[in-house]
Every structure is written in C-alpha cells, then in structure tokens.
C-alpha cells in the first residue's frame, strides 16, 4: 500500500476542510472497494483517505413522495436493495446494486463511490441516469446539484472541484405509468466488470410512449444518455419496430473500444440487445407487471 494517512470526518464541513487542505491526493473514503484497491495497486496517487461514513447525511436512505428518494453517498448497496420502498419504486436501482462485485463488496460499496470512481462501466450509473438522478455536492463554495448524466467527464474524471464531495444522490418520485429496468452483459454470471450495461425508463400513455430515457454504459468514456434512442420512441406506440429503432439509435450513438473485456463489434451488438431487453422490461413494469 502506498504511503497513505487516514482521517475521519463527522460533519460535512469537516470533510470539506480535510479535502481542501489535502489537495488532489486526498480522496473520499466511503465503501473503499475501489479506492483502497487503487491505492494499493498504485493506480491512483492517494495520500489521505477522508472517511465520510460518520457523516449522517451520507448514510441516509429516505423517501417521500415530494422530495423523492434520497440516498446518502456512502450508503452501502445492501441497504439500498434491501429497502422495501426502493424495491417497489426503483427496481432498476435494485437490479444494478444487487450485482456489483458480489455480496461482500455490496456490504460496503456505495452509489457515491460507484459514481465518483468515474469508471465508464460503472454499473449503477445508467440506472441513476434513467431515474433522473442528481448528485448533491458540498464544497468550499457551498452546495450544488449536478445531474448524473453530466457528472462524469471521462475515465476517472468528473466535475468535482478540489474540496468538493458528493453528499447524497437524489431521485424524483417515479411518474405514474412509468417503469424502468437495468441489465448488463458479463462473460461469467457474476463478479465481472460490465462489457456493456444499459438502463431504460418509459412512461406509457396507453400504448404510446409519453417519454423515455435510455442510458448505455461501458461503450464510451462516460455513460451516455442517448436522446436519439428516446426520440425514436416518444409519441409513438411501443412496438417491435419502434423498440428496434431505439436500439439501433443507441447502437449508433455508442463509441466502444476494443479491450480485454470486449470488442467493438461485440459491444455494439450488445448495446442493441440490452436496450431492447430493458425497454421491454421497463414497459412491462410501466403497465403494472
């Protein structure tokens, strides 16, 4: 392990102070399942872990119909997918958090960590995007909110300034007659980084699509919210043809690379497959299935 120190923050202001003074090599420590490994393998320079878990706002998990769902940035996955309200109202979040890294990882790993690690294949990000998620950020200059789809700017990079950190993630109440779904493709049945992941939400007015949001991950430097795919559906009936058109639009928007986890050809094909499959499931849920 590289030469790293540890500090505990009990309040938001304490965390801001530690992160500001610590400079770029001070990193938030939430679940630690990414950052501790990166520090050990010297893939990121880390001189100070700022443990935010003691801060109450980072451990919240509450819902009300007006404010929607607020999840503290350090809340571990197992609390998220174990919550009855989340299971009922945000099934795509449950789908994603249930498979990140295996049971023991889920005992610690958080949405805040998954987002701020800024990995292109982050499993929770497509689900957070299609649920209109925003990141509640605190920093030396005060508070701000950034939509999840705008948060990451490249592999390992995001919009946080020095001293800032994500306190919580917030999602509006799901609209009536809407449904969402999330899927990923991996070579084994668990434990792998996604070759491609995707999430879709649709709102149905009868059989017509009122609106849709489709996000695809691991096929660009950041997770993509594909407007063209949504446009292929909005105002139209949900049929094999319109679903296929949305899937093709998502495929066209994707910019995957060849690497040890997948090839361009494979990933492009999988984008279409996963968008199709998540749209069908989202529609089923929208209809109350």
């Amino acid at each position, binding site marked *: *392990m*590289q*030469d*790293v*120190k*540890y500090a505990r923050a009990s309040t938001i202001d304490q965390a801001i102070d530690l992160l500001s003074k610590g400079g770029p090599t001070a990193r938030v*420590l939430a*679940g*630690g*399942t990414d950052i*501790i*490994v990166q520090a*050990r*393998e010297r893939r990121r320079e880390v001189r100070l*872990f700022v*443990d935010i*878990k003691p801060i109450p706002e980072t451990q919240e998990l509450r819902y009300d119909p007006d404010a929607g769902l607020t999840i503290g940035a350090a809340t*571990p996955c*197992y609390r998220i997918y174990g919550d009855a309200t989340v299971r009922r109202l945000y099934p795509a979040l449950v789908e994603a958090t249930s498979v990140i*890294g*295996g*049971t*023991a*990882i889920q*005992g*610690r790993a958080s949405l805040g960590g998954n987002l701020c690690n800024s990995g292109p294949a982050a499993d929770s990000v497509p689900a957070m995007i299609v649920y209109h998620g925003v990141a509640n950020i605190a920093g030396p200059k005060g508070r701000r909110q950034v939509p999840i789809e705008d948060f990451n700017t490249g592999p390992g990079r995001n919009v946080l300034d020095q001293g800032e950190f994500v306190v919580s993630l917030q999602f509006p109440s799901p609209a009536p007659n809407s449904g969402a779904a999330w899927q990923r493709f991996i070579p084994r*049945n*668990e*434990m792998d980084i996604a070759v491609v992941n995707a999430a879709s939400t649709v709102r149905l007015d009868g059989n017509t699509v009122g609106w849709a949001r489709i996000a695809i991950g691991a096929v660009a430097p950041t997770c993509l919210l594909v407007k063209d795919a949504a446009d292929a559906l909005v105002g139209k009936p949900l049929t094999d043809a319109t679903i296929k058109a949305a899937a093709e639009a998502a495929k066209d928007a994707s910019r995957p690379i060849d690497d040890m986890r997948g090839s361009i050809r494979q990933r492009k094909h999988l984008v279409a497959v996963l968008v199709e499959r998540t749209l069908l499931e989202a529609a089923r849920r929208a209809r109350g299935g």
Partner: protein
Amino acid sequence: MSDRIIIQATINGEEMEFLADERDSLLEALRERIGLTGTKECCNNGNCGACAVILDGRLVNSCCVMAAEVEGSQITTVEGLAQDGLTPLQQSFLEEAALQCGICTPGFLVSSTALLEKNPNPTEHEIRFWLSGNLCRCTGYDKIVRAVQSASQKMRGQ
C-alpha cells in the same frame, strides 16, 4: 508519512487493543498485527472472498477495509464462528467433503454463516448467487453448495 495507530475493536467477542500501520488493511492487521491468520490473503483486491469477515454484522472483504476504519467495531473471523465445538456449517463442510486444500474454506464459512443468518432456507440458486464472490479452485463448488444445504436443514431442525 503514515503513522502507527492504535485501534480498539471487539474481535470474536473479545475486546482488543492493537497496534497497526495507518496503511494496513483490516486483513493485514488481522494477519500480521494481531496474528489471526485464519482469514486468508489471496488476491488483495476484493475478487476472491478468501478474506471475508463479518464487520458490524455485515459480510465484507477485509482487504477492502482499512484497519483504521474499524475503531469501535465488532468483527467476526473464522476463528470466532464456533463457540463450543463446531458449528453445523463447519460440521457439514467436513461431512460433505466440501474442502480439499481448505484455503478458501474460512471465506466460504464466514460467507455461508452470513447467508444462513439472513436467509435460513435458501434455494440452490440463492446459495450460488450469495457465494459467487468466494472463489474455490479445488472443489468445483458442488459439495460446498450441498454442505450449505445440509447445514440449513440441520439448523431448521430437519
């Protein structure tokens, strides 16, 4: 410069105070500083489950936890599973021949203990899903799954 730190935690029911390095993981502290070598180090990046412990009631990979984080926490390792003799799970692992080299066994026992506490009657799929973060290279998992099923039956009085 990382420092030496003093940690107070309850490990296997025993209140302990130990010296660690600020850059030690919980796994390293358990094995190197405290001398509890039952928890194993096999990948050091959260991908094999051999280092699994129960931390404040939750199954975690101890290689992904810093020693400094466990101040005031409760930790259960494989050494602390059994109070009097062997637990039904430990006994089942032996009866079902669910280990060969045994290096993954502590991790599997801690994980399975956590599973049966949460879900006393898991299906085969649920067992395999819960244990997918524990790698075994010797057994092909068949007898491990059977051992968990057998223990679950015993513990439900069947």
